[in-house]
């Protein structure tokens, strides 16, 4: 028999190996070591999770209702991010509007220049034509 497959090792871990597998384990140090390592890792995992869970339970008792504060802070962060995004969009719109302003100003200035450069006010222009004819 070749070395034990993953399924065989799983059967051993679950405590249901058949005679053939048990016999192989007795005679194969490599498979025995492999199984031992696997068992130790799972046992260490069990111990670590239990210990960690106990510590976390103490943390949960020490800090009353942390879930609300955390979920609130998460929603606050989201709201803040949305607000900042809104401000950025608004600022860019205003800025682009500002970029168009010089063109509008130039038209207005031209109109003012045209008015100022007239020799007489527009209401007197027909009279000026009569004088020019003379």
């Amino acid at each position: 028999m070749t070395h034990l497959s993953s399924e065989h090792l799983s059967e051993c871990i679950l405590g249901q190996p058949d005679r053939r597998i048990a016999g192989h384990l007795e005679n194969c140090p490599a498979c025995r070591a492999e199984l031992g390592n696997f068992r130790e890792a799972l046992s260490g995992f069990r111990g670590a999770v239990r210990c960690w869970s106990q510590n976390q339970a103490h943390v949960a008792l020490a800090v009353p209702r942390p879930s609300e504060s955390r979920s609130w802070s998460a929603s606050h962060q989201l709201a803040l991010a949305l607000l900042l995004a809104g401000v950025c969009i608004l600022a860019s719109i205003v800025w682009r509007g500002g970029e168009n302003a010089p063109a509008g100003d130039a038209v207005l200035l031209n109109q003012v220049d045209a008015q100022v450069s007239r020799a007489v006010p527009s209401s007197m222009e027909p009279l000026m034509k009569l004088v020019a004819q003379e």
Partner: protein
Amino acid sequence: MQLSAASELERAIRPDVAVAQDFEALVQLYRPKVFRFALASLRDLDTAESVTQDCFLRAYQARDGFRQDCSTQTWLMRIAVNLIRDQIRNRRFQFWRRASLTAKPADVAGHGIADRARSPEAQALLNEQVAAVWEAAGKLPERQRTVFLLRFVEDLDLLEIACATGMKEGTVKTHLFRALRAVRVRLGGVA
């Protein structure tokens, strides 16, 4: 006359009080286990707390319907399994929680029980293996992870897991085999 009325009232109240006291004892006994299972499944302290509270609330509400066809622990685990499943489904949409609040392998591996007989190198190796198992367990599909944790953290046997998850015993075994294979691959073994 008044005395008789008071004693009648007391008799009427006492069963509820007794049930409440019994239930309080049940909570004291099983709360750490339910919390541990929820925490290992969800890896988030707040959600695990919430699931544990919900579990006992539902158990209290459904206590009359408990047919005692399985142990109390298995019955509570069954409620917890369903609540955790709901949480996982809801959490798929809460991307910011997934990213920030899950426990890292090192958080858990550091809690391994130190063995004085083990050399520092061997202890470090074991911590690495524990971290690898934790990481592999986190990547397992939901059902595989559930049966894996019920078997290797809560020490439930196949029949109890079948009762807690509502699966057939053969299905539980299949999920366990797949979970073990994935964990072994993560540990560096050949599948």
